[in-house]
């Protein structure tokens, strides 16, 4: 069973402050992802990574940076947090052993972020 952990699980931040969300996976997956999920909606991709040292922009990257210092760790950084970034953030890791389009993603438990 894939193991993806996130920290913190809950975070309250002030507008304009810096927030770092951390993700760790122990499955040696090359691909890692950051999503946000807003009430009543699906997951939207913020940033993703193919491996250590790589980060790519997802569908909604504005206001976010990402860092992948190692195979296991992938961070999401909000340099200047805004209330519109209040959301639940999910990290996932994935493999594509079945080929293109078949990346089974294993999700962490989520981080609930409130920006005041």
């Amino acid at each position, binding site marked *: 069973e894939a193991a993806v952990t996130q920290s913190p699980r809950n975070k309250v931040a002030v507008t304009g402050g810096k927030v770092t969300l951390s993700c760790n996976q122990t499955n040696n997956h090359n691909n890692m992802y950051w999503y946000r999920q807003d009430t009543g909606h699906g997951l939207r991709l913020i940033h993703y990574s193919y491996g250590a040292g790589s980060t790519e922009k997802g*569908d909604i990257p504005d206001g976010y940076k990402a860092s992948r210092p190692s195979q296991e760790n992938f961070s999401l950084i909000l340099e200047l947090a805004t209330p519109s970034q209040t959301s639940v953030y999910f990290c996932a890791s994935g493999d594509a052993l079945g080929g293109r389009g078949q990346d089974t993603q294993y999700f962490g438990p989520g981080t609930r972020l409130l920006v005041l």
Partner: protein
Amino acid sequence: SQWGEENLQALSIQEGEDVTMNCSYKTYTTVVHWYRQDSGRGPALIILIRSNEREKRSGRLRATLDTSSQSSSLSITAAQCEDTAVYFCATDPLLSGSFNKLTFGAGTRLAVCP
């Protein structure tokens, strides 16, 4: 049905009933993923169907895929209280420059039992 920016759909059924959730997608895909999300947890893959399969079964779950109409469905037979969750479909749009990027639908919230 669910997709893209559509709002979360909601279904409420009684235990023992069968239920089908639909998903339509906008761009070509060779595979549809169905994920389940329990309250307070991250999504988890429950079934994956490839374009050459048309139908896939796993226990009480049945997924179908019709690439000509760009639609997929997930059926649950004899639903149980523990099937209460949000169900998402997801595809890889196979766009140039993307690699194993899943696009998730808005989801269907299924409630079984009062």
